[in-house]
């Protein structure tokens, strides 16, 4: 537009032979550039120069965009995740007078995890923020052994014990609100400070390490003895079926009533786990999982509550997906707190070390990818003798889990 206006202004006079009307503007209207026309002053850059300048500007923007993308690419290695498990729980009164039991809201878990994964190293920190306080759950420094494509790694810090299936499994993935009774007793807090090697080769899975042994629920931030515990699992994963055997050997210092001084007692576990996945029901996938653990010296609070006591237990879990968003699960678990010891009675209450079986049912629904709601009903059945009766301790849990 600007070019047209200026060329008309500078139009040379026509040759005499040409008809004047063809080039001369009408005499009544003086030649004016249109109101919206640009005027190009003398010495201004040409169109080509301006195009070239614009191209450079675009290239500059492209470079800035690339730089930004490169910066963002580095940030992609940093990942934040977490979940909150909020609950309403109802436990029936222990007897007909209405004593005992509860009806309460709780925040069971409030996890926030930061993971930075590079080619050779991984940083992982997880905290748990709940009404009782904020605690450190995991603090892991991992080295991926070079040349192994991150299939072999060494981790030091505070981490989960490499034992069994349900212990290391994330609570956000589990169908039931809590782990089975045997796992809660044999692997209290599931975590400890130590170092472990993690390896994968084709279908084989190996994880083993050296740990303080007392766990993070021991109430101390440092181990109370020099004895280290060796814990590991050798497993396999064939997609539709997976499993493994786990072992734990260590010692715990403690004093039984018969001891004059503290002495080292064996702390050991043996476990086997199996998970099978089927796609036979048209409604959705089906899984059957089971685990058996037997061990000696167990329990929270310095592991001294059941010093040198042998115990065992197992669970069986059946999960049926119904479509994309729903699932139903049934779990039966049993735990004998003292192998070979006969069940006892304390008046009309069962003895503290009587075996307990628990039947649980859970229905869960996913609202999109971030929210899961589950309703669980659990019926603990404590074995009884004589006049003792099974306590009324059935538990209903309604849980909302938000995860990102």
């Amino acid at each position, binding site marked *: 537009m600007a070019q047209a206006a200026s060329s008309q202004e500078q139009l040379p006079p026509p040759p005499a032979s040409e008809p004047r009307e063809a080039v001369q503007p009408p005499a009544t209207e003086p030649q004016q550039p249109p109101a919206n026309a640009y005027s190009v002053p003398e010495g201004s850059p040409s169109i080509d120069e301006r195009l070239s300048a614009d191209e450079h500007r675009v290239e500059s923007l492209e470079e800035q965009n690339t730089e930004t993308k490169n910066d963002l690419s580095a940030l992609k290695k940093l990942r934040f995740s977490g979940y909150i498990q909020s609950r309403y729980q109802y436990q029936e009164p222990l007897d007909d007078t209405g004593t005992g039991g509860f009806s309460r809201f709780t925040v069971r878990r409030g996890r926030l995890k930061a993971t930075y994964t590079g080619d050779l190293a991984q940083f992982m920190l997880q905290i748990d923020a709940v009404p009782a306080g904020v605690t450190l759950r995991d603090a892991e420094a991992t080295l991926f052994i070079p040349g192994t494509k991150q299939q072999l790694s060494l981790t030091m810090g505070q981490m989960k014990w490499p034992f069994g299936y349900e212990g290391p499994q994330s609570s956000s993935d589990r169908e039931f609100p809590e782990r089975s009774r045997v796992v809660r007793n044999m692997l209290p807090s599931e975590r400890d400070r130590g170092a472990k090697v993690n390896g994968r080769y084709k279908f084989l899975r190996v994880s083993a390490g050296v740990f303080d042994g007392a766990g993070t629920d021991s109430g101390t931030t440092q181990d109370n003895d020099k004895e280290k515990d060796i814990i590991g699992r050798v497993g396999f994963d064939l997609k539709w079926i997976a499993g493994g055997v786990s072992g734990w050997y260590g010692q715990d210092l403690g004093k039984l009533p018969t001891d004059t001084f503290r002495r080292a007692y064996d702390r050991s576990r043996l476990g086997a786990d199996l998970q099978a996945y089927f*796609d036979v029901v048209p*409604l*959705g996938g*089906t899984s059957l999982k089971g685990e058996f653990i037997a061990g000696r010296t167990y329990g929270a609070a310095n592991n001294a509550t059941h010093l040198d006591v042998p115990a065992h237990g197992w669970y069986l879990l059946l999960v049926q997906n119904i479509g994309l968003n729903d699932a139903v699960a049934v779990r039966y678990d049993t735990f004998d707190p003292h192998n070979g010891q006969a069940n006892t009675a304390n008046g009309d209450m069962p003895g503290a070390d009587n075996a307990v079986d628990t039947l649980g049912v859970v*229905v869960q629904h996913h609202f999109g990818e971030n929210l899961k709601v589950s309703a669980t009903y659990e019926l603990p059945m404590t074995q009884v003798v004589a006049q003792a009766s099974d306590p009324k301790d059935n538990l209903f849990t309604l849980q909302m889990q938000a995860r990102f």
Partner: protein
Amino acid sequence: MKKTLRSSLVALGLTLLPLAAQAGTVTVKGSDTMVILAQRWAEAFMKKNPSMKIQVTGGGSGTGLAALQNGTTDIAMSSREMKEAEEEKLRARYNTPPTQFSVAKDGVTFYVNEANKVDTLTVEQLKAIYLGDTESWKAVGGADAPIVLYSRENSSGTYVFVKDTVLGGDDFASAAQTLPGTAAVVNAVSKEKNGIGYGGAAYAKGIKELKIKKGNEAFAPTAENVKSGKYPLSRDLFFYLRNKPSGDVKAFIDFALSAEGQAIVTQVGYFPVK
């Protein structure tokens, strides 16, 4: 109280009963390398089955596999094999192992500008270039000019394939510029005379494809070389499902693997699996 709880559980169970999946619509999401191929399949399939609707979108293999996990796609397209962590997440969520279908073959092609006199490189030379150890074309028989690296975003299956197969798991040089699709890489290389990039064969138009030297022979990413396995950078292109296929999803996969579907693979520029 027990009765109340029982009634509550039954009511909740009934409320949470699953909604039947929308019949007649199949969503396909993932690998940008496979988008054109899947769109062609979808067009041909819908022409034969007018009541069916196939929705195809890209975003990268990682995005498609995440969508499969989140339940927002029926089929995930991926130009790399599913990672163990992704597989474990799917299995934990849906209680069944995912199903994998190899639906086509592709040769990952390295492109240079048409003006570049280099036309053959070894995998080792490519590795040195993309790790940043070789910075001049002169070192590999070209002009005395700096090498300009173009790469893909890390959600891309092609990125993962090159990282694993060419770089041996090491990280790309920081100088490599990441671009949001193979078409963008091709475009950039066609404009930058010292550029090098990579992508699927289907996009390799208007620029020069490098031959890959193995031993004393150099192999171009041709159909014969990819199918025979002589071309060192060939790979499978996959469809992933949460479980075994059924209904509309099965019908679409059957079509993709049929003679007609595999003919489309060839038309688009990839290589059939059958």
